[in-house]
């Protein structure tokens, strides 16, 4: 099927406009991170008057960025690993067993994803605070509380995507393993998981991204010691100065790992979406 001239030009125009829309903010982020402070305090410039890497050095001392970074790394990594571990077992049950409550479980878990975050925020805040007062288990303003909260945020989508992956693995493999005398858990770990590695990796990255980018609960459930990047990055605007060059440098640094991870694994996300939603 040949492309007509009109279609070709239409495609070029659409792609050019979309590219400009996407690229301009990214361009500003990257170039402004290399600007000296006076460039971002006066009128906007397309190019740094004097390109410098100073913002990447100064950003660590203007706010305790290293602490925020460590907090975000710890919280997001643990939340991602736990979320995927829990999701693997749940997805295995949903994919390989038929049991009473299977449909209810799937629907309930997925629908919680659609509920307003603000609905959980106030009660969860009170539960964490009161639990701390009553039992001494510090969940409010602690990284543990954030980990538990975040891991449930990514859980539904992780389960859903892994079910799609597990479903695509032929059951003949399970049966072969059982003939060899493998129990259900050995089947899961030695047959199904090795075949679903891309799915598991994609889900891990997704869970990490969810925790890494969360703002609402981070802004309420943390204090100075447990603050994550999502809230900490707003500290660059002091009353006298907004260090836009350092903000852009810090934004760039905290974005690169998740963007690279997501883009490297994008085809597995597409595959997961195709396996689940589109069928």
């Amino acid at each position, binding site marked *: 099927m040949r492309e007509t001239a009109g279609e070709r030009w239409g495609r070029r125009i659409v792609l050019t406009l979309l590219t400009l*829309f996407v690229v301009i*903010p990214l361009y500003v982020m990257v170039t402004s991170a290399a600007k000296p402070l006076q460039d971002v305090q006066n009128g*906007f410039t397309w190019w740094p008057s004097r390109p410098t890497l100073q913002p990447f050095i100064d950003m660590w001392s203007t706010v305790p960025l290293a602490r925020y970074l460590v907090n975000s790394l710890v919280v997001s990594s643990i939340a991602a690993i736990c979320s995927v571990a829990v999701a693997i077992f749940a997805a295995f049950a949903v994919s390989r067993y038929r*049991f009473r409550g299977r449909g209810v479980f799937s629907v309930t*878990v997925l629908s919680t994803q659609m509920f307003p*975050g603000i609905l959980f925020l*106030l*009660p969860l805040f009170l539960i964490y605070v009161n639990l701390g007062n009553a039992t001494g288990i510090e969940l409010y303003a602690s990284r543990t509380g954030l980990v538990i909260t975040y891991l449930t945020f990514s859980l539904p989508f992780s389960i859903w995507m892994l079910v799609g992956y597990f479903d695509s693995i032929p059951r003949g493999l399970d049966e072969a393993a059982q003939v060899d005398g493998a129990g259900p858990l050995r089947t899961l770990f030695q047959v199904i998981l090795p075949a679903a590695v891309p799915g598991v990796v994609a889900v891990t990255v997704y869970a990490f991204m969810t925790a890494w980018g969360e703002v609402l609960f981070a802004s309420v459930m943390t204090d100075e010691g447990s603050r994550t990047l999502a809230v900490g990055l707003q500290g660059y605007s002091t009353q006298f100065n907004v260090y836009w060059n350092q903000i852009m440098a810090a934004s760039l640094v905290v974005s690169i790992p998740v963007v690279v991870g997501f883009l490297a694994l994008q085809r597995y996300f597409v595959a997961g979406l195709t396996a689940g939603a589109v069928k």
Partner: protein
Amino acid sequence: MATSTTAPDADQREPRAGSPAREPARRPRGPRRSLLPYLLLAPAVVLELAIHVIPMVVGVWMSLLELTQFHIRDWSTAPFIGLENYRATLDLNSAAGKELLHSFWITLAYSLLSVGFAWLLGISAAVVLQRPFRGRAILRALFLTPYALPVYAAVITWSFLLQRDTGLVNHVLVDQLGLMNERPFWLIGDNSFWSLLVVSVWRNWPFAFLCLMAGLQNVPGELYEAAAIDGAGFWRRLRSVTLPMLRPVNLVLLLVLFLWTFNDFNTPFVLFGGSAPEQADLISIHIYRSSFKTWDFGSGSAMSVALLLFLLVVSAAYLLITNRRRDDHA
């Protein structure tokens, strides 16, 4: 945010459970076997109960209490006042009720426009990238980048672009193109709504693109060949092949995007620095601000529950209507 990154679909799961192809390889035999799936699910169920279900129930309970700042520390002392919080916050003659209604309309307009534009950009990109050409993989990755960025990094960058004196937008509009004499404010006043909308579309459209791209991979190429042989031009093929084939994806995608944007908190919170101007006072941020400003969690919970009920009704109506239409077609 809880509702931020997912495309799950309750509706689509049901047929799967019943379809014969999905018959599990092994039926549970004996009591030990039949317990196993529940044990496997237990961690997920416990977590969902602890973080989603129980807080939701507690939230409904809180909305019936006079849970003001005097009772926050020890909420067992808060008196039960029935539906009083609902009456106070939803009373459209009171100041609080008027503000809530205002916020509701803003949010509705914001969601509908944002979903519409995100879908439009998503389908355009998915369609023009359908056919292979040099550089397609790079463009695809580039288009997904706004979605991969942490939301705060993306929105902070936009708030820099939109600064009145130091931002790119005014530099281009006022200094370079000379379209305006005055430098407009983009983050306060009437313009703030449109700023919020643009940022939200920038961030959300790649998700629509991702889903629609996945959907297009399932459209057999022969359909286009056949349509082309019949003399169908670009628009005709789009209307008669692409869009009908994408219908299942669109049904889910539009609902999910709508629910996300309606509950959106992150974009205004970061864009406007912890608050929101009246013209861009989305409902999540409205509830958040009124709860933590006055520490009246009772009325905050009442508004949250009302929001949830509204969204449940909208979702149910949407699913009913779209299902009925599907039956009509069959």
